[in-house]
């Protein structure tokens, strides 16, 4: 198990580093997708299948594709933007290292005292993960479930309203205006003499 864990977590961290350090933004998005696949595998390993598959469906299927579309729409020179930060790079890495060492020290001095499986193996729960989730999500957390749906609806409406563009100079149909037109205002009857036409 530790072998599998090391395998997936190595590639997860590799993908994460790719997101942060890759030169091309498209490569960064692809690294993000790679990282999410490995994270999903890690979650499936400990028996959280539904969250793992959700991660693939939501992130790889929707969010990463959204990122890819936006990357293709924008024409951005990433290196030019990064050059401004380069002098601070070693400080960023230094403080990141300090943070990791602090967490390591914390874990070393205060090992987590949880339930039975704390320091031992993470054992997947017996039975159906999806059923267990549904029993809680649709009963205890039903109001929050509705709220999550409302959040997604609002996000969808917001994104559409924000990016909808009213271009000038485009001839578009205004139905109310069309219906308000009357024959007396617009149609004129002419009786041109033969051979001359309408002026």
């Amino acid at each position, binding site marked *: 198990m530790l072998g599998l864990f090391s395998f997936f977590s190595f590639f997860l961290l590799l993908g994460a580093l790719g997101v*942060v350090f890759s030169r091309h933004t498209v490569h960064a998005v692809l690294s*993000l997708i790679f990282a999410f696949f490995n994270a999903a595998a*890690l979650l499936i390993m400990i028996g959280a299948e539904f969250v793992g598959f959700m991660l693939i469906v939501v992130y790889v299927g929707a969010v990463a594709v959204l990122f890819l579309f936006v990357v293709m729409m924008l024409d951005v020179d*990433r290196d030019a933007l990064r050059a401004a930060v380069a002098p601070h790079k070693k400080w960023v890495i230094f403080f990141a290292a300090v943070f990791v060492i602090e967490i390591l020290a914390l874990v070393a001095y205060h090992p987590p005292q949880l339930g039975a499986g704390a320091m031992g193996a993470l054992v997947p729960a017996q039975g159906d993960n999806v059923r267990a989730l549904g029993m809680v999500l649709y009963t205890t957390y039903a109001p929050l479930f509705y709220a999550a749906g409302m959040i997604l609806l609002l996000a969808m409406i917001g994104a559409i309203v924000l990016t909808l563009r009213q271009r000038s100079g485009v001839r578009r149909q205004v139905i109310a205006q069309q219906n308000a037109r009357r024959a007396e205002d617009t149609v004129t009857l002419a009786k041109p003499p033969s051979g001359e036409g309408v002026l």
Partner: protein
Amino acid sequence: MLDVLLQPVGIVHYFLLSTLLFVIGAMGIFLNRRHVLSMLMALELILLAVNINFVAFSVAHGNVEGQIFSFFILTVAAAEAAIGLAILVIFFRRHHTVDVAAMDTLKG
């Protein structure tokens, strides 16, 4: 040698993994702090680290509520990505850059 590979995985492993992922994401925010799109991607990494933590502790406790919470994080992260990218698109349309330093319109 092979015994090490077959050792069981504990909560500590997942905790350290999610810490490293969180730190890489935070580093990404600071290293790419002129580029909004890269910052958003680093933010997704941070949220992923939090999700891994929630799920691992939920399995350790034998309580599915941690996984429920990670769903809500996932929902909010998806909404945030959609709105953030929409704002980014209209910002790029107006200013032809995604440089954070150019976002000073509200200064008046």
